[in-house]
């Protein structure tokens, strides 16, 4: 799954016009609502409800409880680790790039290309991204070979493997960092010069300004974006599948295999797996939306 930037808008709603026809105005959104119900909401509910049903359609917690078996728990655990790691590193790296572009005194013309590239890279996920990283960090990849031949560093001997936790995290960063850059650059731009100057003239050092003023102001944006990146990584199937096949047992791949009928015997366990995904990405996105609105209130 890829996520393009969604700049928040406090929309000035068109003035509501009262007319005699107003009672039938809802007819205008019937097609959209029908579409959303049939192809978004009902399919999802189908899964959610299925997670609490047994073979005969009776209510049960058994499926959800079955998630707590070692193989599935470990899949969730590694999924969460990869998502947290790639979101955290993506946030940190993206923050520094955004800060460099926004307030780092770089030549002004560099900003455009950086933002455009971020737009491209944040949408460059999926199978081709896996290929690119295999060609670069795989056993015969450019970087692997260069490091070995020029610097005598064998990263594979050091425990790195593109098909593992570290490799997947490194790969995910390719779309995580640019997404962070796209979201956080406007937020850093929003830091007013006067805030820094007011803090400094009151005696604060630059680190104090960042600790007491800038980072607290940015905090909702940072936390929200972290949650968004987490969900982004957690739901990513294609990159992981193309990179590792089914050798790395993470939740989306487990679910993929389950849907194809390869692995798990019990179809209702698949529902429970999917429910777990929805819950985790739902929580993450909930955090994103809540913190986002809080950040906007301040910046106003």
């Amino acid at each position, binding site marked *: 799954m890829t996520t393009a930037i969604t700049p928040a808008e406090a929309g000035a709603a068109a003035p509501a016009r009262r007319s005699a026809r107003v009672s039938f105005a809802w007819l205008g959104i019937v097609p959209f609502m029908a579409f959303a119900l049939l192809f978004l909401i009902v399919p999802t509910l189908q899964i959610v409800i299925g997670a609490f049903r047994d073979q005969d359609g009776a209510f049960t917690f058994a499926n959800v409880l079955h998630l707590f078996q070692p193989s599935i728990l470990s899949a969730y655990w590694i999924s969460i680790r990869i998502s947290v790691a790639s979101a955290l590193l993506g946030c940190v790296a993206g923050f520094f790039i955004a800060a460099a572009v926004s307030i780092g005194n770089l030549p002004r013309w560099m900003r455009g290309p950086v933002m455009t590239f971020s737009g491209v890279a944040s949408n460059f996920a999926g199978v081709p991204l896996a290929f690119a990283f295999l060609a670069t960090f795989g056993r015969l990849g450019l970087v692997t070979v260069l490091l070995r031949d020029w610097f005598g560093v064998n990263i594979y001997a050091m425990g790195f493997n593109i098909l593992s936790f570290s490799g997947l995290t490194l790969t995910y960063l390719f779309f995580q960092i640019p997404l962070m850059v796209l979201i956080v650059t406007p937020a850093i731009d929003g830091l*007013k010069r*006067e*805030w820094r*100057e*007011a*803090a*400094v*003239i*009151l*005696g*604060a*050092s630059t680190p*104090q300004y960042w600790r*007491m*003023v800038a980072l*607290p*102001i940015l*905090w909702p944006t940072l936390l929200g974006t972290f949650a968004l990146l987490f969900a982004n990584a957690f739901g990513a199937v294609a990159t992981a599948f193309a990179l590792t096949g089914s050798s790395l047992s993470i939740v989306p791949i487990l679910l993929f295999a389950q849907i194809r009928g390869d692995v798990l015997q019990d179809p209702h366990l698949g529902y429970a797996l999917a429910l777990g995904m929805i819950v985790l990405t739902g929580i993450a996105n909930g955090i994103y939306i809540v913190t986002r609105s809080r950040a906007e*209130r*301040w*910046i*106003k």
Partner: protein
Amino acid sequence: MAFLELSGVRKDFELVRVVRDFNLDVERGEFISFLGPSGCGKTTTLRMVAGFETPTAGEIRIAGRDVVGLKPNQRNIGMVFQSYALFPNMTVAQNVAFGLKVAGKPRAEIDARVAQMLGIIKLPQLADRYPFQLSGGQQQRVALARALAVQPQVLLLDEPLSALDAKIRVSLREEIRAIQKALGITTIYVTHDQEEALSMSDRIVVMHEGRVDQIGTPFEIYNTPATSFVASFVGTLNRIEGIIADPSAGTVRVGARDVAVASPLGARRAGEQVSLALRPEAVTLAPRPGQDVAIEARIVEVAFLGSVIRVRADIGGATITLDTFNSPASPPPRIGDAVTLHLSSSDWVVLAD
């Protein structure tokens, strides 16, 4: 020795000279305004005092100490910005406490000082509000309290009232001045609003294209402007072009008549062009004791402004604006009336331009 001294201060941005040869001595406790049109270098000068800009040349001393090499956070200066610049993530009390907290003051002292400052700005009930919950006027008062909480040596205000609406502007400027007097803090106040500068300041620095045109009390600035720029920028003014008739007698030919001018005409010679300035309130329609000049004129415009009636009268070759007080007993003059304008020859100001 003055408390705050600027001597020979200059600032160039790339090739543009924004402030040139700025000299100013500010006494302890004095309230100084920088007055001038936008872009004349007021903010730049203020920011050099604060330490956000480094002068290209010149010295800035506070209490005898050269501060040019010091960072802004080492200068012990308070600053208030046009945009308030309150920290949006902190409550009112936390904003006011910021400088004290950074200075590592003990908790109890901070709390006491914050309470005292909120009392001074008369907003103790808003201590736990966030800036976005305050009106502009309230925000600016909090910003003032924040700047003053650290007991700075000098207070700098950069157009602090420009973003507020007219009514609050007037009440807040009185409040700022009262607080400044009570604390006796040395203050520089930047504004492009002459009314603000005239009503608040001990002395005004009128700036024009990066230069200091005049430094003086509001009375001096208003009544004896040093340059034609000062004369035209501060207050309403009659500007009349004339030709010197007789330098020794002090007469200037305006249109077809000679008028007596008490100001020294200096080294000028007869036949030279000269600009004269005259405040509208110096001219009356009825003679007053001490007025020694009378000019025949015809009224061309009458504007009723409330307590004052503004009249424009043609004296042949020039138009003079004058203000008369409204009096319910006598009707205002009418257009076309022939009148006699009375003034004192010492009211004329010869502009140096």
